[in-house]
């Protein structure tokens, strides 16, 4: 079966866009988690000043639209003589925004670990480092995994905003073709299916990880 030139061009563009989307999502997800862990720890265990800083960071990035953050990075920073490439602006925005949400889950997970768990470990003679490594982290991961995974799923969808700062990923590539051929319904339905596939894969992987880590008493809900 031969595809019509329109579809040939469409899928070529969309596949190119898909690669770009993945190139946006993976570093952003990893960076977001790292920042989230860092900020989450500060917000859970830091002293007054540090905690306020962490909370302020989270409140700002959770309280403003991602598109505003991207506009500030891409269109705003040049006012200060700072020029970011579309890709750099998008990834920076995604990491900072995602990190703020991730820190919320990490903080919640850390705070949900009861005092008794620390006491139990101390009483057996665990050092602080051993307690963190063998007791706190395994429990925190299980409490945070569902929220953090969902945040990555959000990130997959919101990676479409990179198009707005002219980083041509899935949405941007598709929009170009749709405008050129004036075939919006088909093109955007197909783009939607691409995202559904990405999201469904992520959901599946997340579920597998959650199952693998499942321990009675730590389930989600």
């Amino acid at each position, binding site marked *: 079966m031969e595809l019509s030139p329109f579809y040939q061009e469409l899928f070529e563009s969309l596949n190119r866009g898909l690669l770009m989307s993945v190139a946006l999502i993976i570093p952003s997800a990893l960076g977001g988690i790292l920042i989230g862990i860092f900020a989450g720890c500060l917000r859970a265990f830091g002293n007054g000043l540090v905690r306020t800083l962490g909370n302020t960071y989270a409140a700002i990035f*959770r309280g403003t639209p991602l598109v505003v953050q991207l506009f*500030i990075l891409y*269109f705003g920073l040049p006012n200060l003589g700072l020029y970011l490439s579309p890709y750099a602006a998008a990834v920076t925005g995604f990491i900072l925004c995602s990190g703020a949400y991730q820190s919320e889950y990490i903080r919640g997970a850390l705070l949900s670990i009861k005092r008794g768990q620390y006491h139990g470990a101390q009483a057996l003679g665990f050092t602080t480092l051993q307690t963190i490594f063998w007791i706190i982290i395994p429990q925190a991961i299980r409490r945070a995994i569902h929220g953090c995974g969902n945040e990555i799923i959000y990130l997959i*969808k919101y990676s*479409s905003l990179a198009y707005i700062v002219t980083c041509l990923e899935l949405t941007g590539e598709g929009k170009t073709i749709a405008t050129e051929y004036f075939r919006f319904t088909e093109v*955007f339905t197909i783009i*939607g299916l691409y995202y559904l596939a990405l999201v469904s894969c992520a959901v599946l992987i997340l579920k597998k990880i959650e199952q693998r880590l499942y321990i009675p008493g730590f389930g989600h809900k």
Partner: protein
Amino acid sequence: MSTSLAVIADALPYLLQGSLFTGAIVVSAMLVGLLVGILAAVGMVYGNPVTRFLVGAYVWFFRGVPVLVLLFLFYFGLFAFLGLNFSAFTSVTIVLGLTTGAYQANIFKGAILSLPAGQFKAASALGMSNGQAIRSIVLPQILRISIPAWSNEYSIILKDSALAFVIGAPEIMARTQFVASRTYQHLALYIAAGVIYFLLTWGGVLILDKLHKYVRIPGYSHQGMNK
């Protein structure tokens, strides 16, 4: 610096008008979502297999496709294709309403399932009809437990509404962009827009939190409902 402030001061009334438009989008989308969400939740819990499948497909689609793509699909695609000449406002309201509806469906489904079965039975035992039982016993309870999750939805929809400028809705972002393209004060103006959104987000969350406390009934909690 002083020019930035002057530009912001000049543009502020114009931007704040945009926040009225944004507010209108958010409120109507939340109401659409509430209606769709409750219907979908009832369909998921009490519906026959066909209804359940259809509702499931709706939820899956709207939770899996980015809002930006949905806006393009509906505004430039489907509505035009169907010959519907919807304004940007109507289009955004429908798209955001259906999106939050898909999430609200799960919120209400969880709330319905968390109600003890005895509540419905007790209502029937008093001689209430099904409709009466739902209106005066079930709904007051599920709406109460759903407020925290609802406040979360509010903050998401508010932020998503900032994408409406891509189809030309004159909300905060569209106006900020317009002024920025004329004054070249991008940084200052987008920060100003950010501040407006920040206040709208946390202001709304605060009000919903107050509401939650106000309608709170002792012994009622949303354990496991809020993320």
